[in-house]
């Protein structure tokens, strides 16, 4: 870059200052839980509309893909009714969309009945973590809709994750398959406590890790339901996490560990419910 003005700052100083800023931010966010709320708020207003739009585009592409498949089948049967086919395709894609929406809403409604005691807000997923290391996503509801960090997120038939950050019109959700997740859980039939941890290695196979399960009498079978426990300070009790997939004795001969198949299909997740009641914690 050319020396333009007399107050030109050498690049290495800018580098040093920004690097120091980053280190200070990291320190603050680690020690004081500073999440960059103000930055998040401003950024939310810039990005959320775009992300919503592009998400809509994604849905539109999905619908079009479905309708194209439909179209070829109909064309083979009667070619002379081309015009009518086109008309029908448009109608059809709309119907598929409606059907899809209906199924989703029915699922959510069924879920609503299961976890009926909680106040919930439905939200759409509008962006997913850009990297390949973690599994978090952004939803299109935020503080304006009463969502705050620490709230549980559910979908389909079970637990999706927890809100870790909230802006005015967006919130960040860390899913239970993320490597940083650690949930206190219990088995449904015997109420034995255990821990559920996300794991990047297992994430690609579609499992999460189950640890420190005490089961001296071998009562827990494959397929046992694992739910959130009563001792967790962040998750409400009794939300379904998944089903036991594999279980083996640890080397200490006291506890068992294994893998869990999550109840939620994370590959095809578009809509989630956020439980706006926070778990009550006794304040000292």
């Amino acid at each position, binding site marked *: 870059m050319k020396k333009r003005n007399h107050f030109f700052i050498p*690049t290495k100083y800018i580098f040093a200052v*920004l*690097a120091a800023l980053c280190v200070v*931010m990291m320190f603050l966010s680690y020690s004081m839980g500073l*999440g960059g709320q103000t930055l998040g708020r401003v950024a939310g207003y810039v990005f959320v509309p775009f992300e919503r739009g592009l998400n809509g585009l994604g849905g539109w592409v999905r619908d079009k893909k479905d309708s194209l498949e439909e179209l070829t089948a109909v064309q083979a049967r009667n070619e002379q009714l081309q015009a009518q086919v086109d008309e029908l395709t448009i109608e059809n894609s709309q119907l598929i969309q409606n059907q899809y929406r209906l199924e989703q809403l029915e699922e959510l409604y069924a879920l609503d009945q299961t976890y009926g005691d909680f106040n919930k807000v439905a939200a759409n997923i509008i962006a997913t973590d*850009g990297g390949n290391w973690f599994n978090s996503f952004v939803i299109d509801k935020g503080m304006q809709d009463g969502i705050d960090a620490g709230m549980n997120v559910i979908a389909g038939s079970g637990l999706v994750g927890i809100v870790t950050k909230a802006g005015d019109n967006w919130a*960040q959700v860390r899913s239970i398959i993320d490597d940083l997740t650690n949930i206190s859980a219990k088995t449904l039939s015997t109420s034995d406590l255990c821990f559920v941890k996300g794991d990047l290695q297992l994430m690609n196979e579609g499992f999460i890790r189950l640890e420190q399960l005490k089961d001296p009498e071998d009562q827990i079978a494959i397929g046992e339901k694992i739910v959130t426990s009563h001792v967790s300070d962040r998750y409400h009790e009794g939300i379904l996490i998944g089903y036991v997939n594999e279980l083996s004795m640890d080397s200490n001969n006291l506890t068992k560990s294994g893998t869990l198949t999550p109840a939620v299909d994370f590959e095809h997740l578009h809509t989630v419910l956020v439980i706006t009641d926070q778990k009550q914690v006794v304040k000292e």
Partner: protein
Amino acid sequence: MKQKLVLALAIIVSFIFQCTIFQSLALASISPNLPLILTTSMGFMRGEREGLVIGFFCGLLMDIFFGSLLGFYALLYMFLGYGSGLFHMVFYDEDIKLPMVWIALSELVYGLSVYFFMFLMRSKFEFSYYFIHIILPELIYTVALTILLYRPIQKLNDLLERLRGDTVRDYYTTSTIVGQNENQTEEL
């Protein structure tokens, strides 16, 4: 000023693409890293100063929306932008091999740093798994994407050069640069 606006737009677009459309382009749940391509190639084409600023903002956006530690990605991307800017001097416009090698190296540094600070620090020791299943596929995918995106990024660089040509003309009446950009600015 126009330069900054264009750059800001490029950062925003790359970030939004990264966390929406690119996630559905993922092969075997691995997606390429568009902000890294932008940061590295801009650093390469335009010097360490712009490289580090672009890197800082790309990383900061990641931190705000997806990070668990505010400032981590900002520092990492800034470092990569600055590092590639140091090789600004050996950059030739037509040659795509060197930028590709450099982007591959940046990806490697990026992957290794994320592994080291976010995984090794939490005593996840299976480095070979992470290297083969995450770092390497992301590197290959990103480099492949670079081949496709290199021309558009060059166009972006040309545009920025032209905008800078305008600014320089405002400050000085330097005949050489204005002369070079005269025809191009008239097209605008």
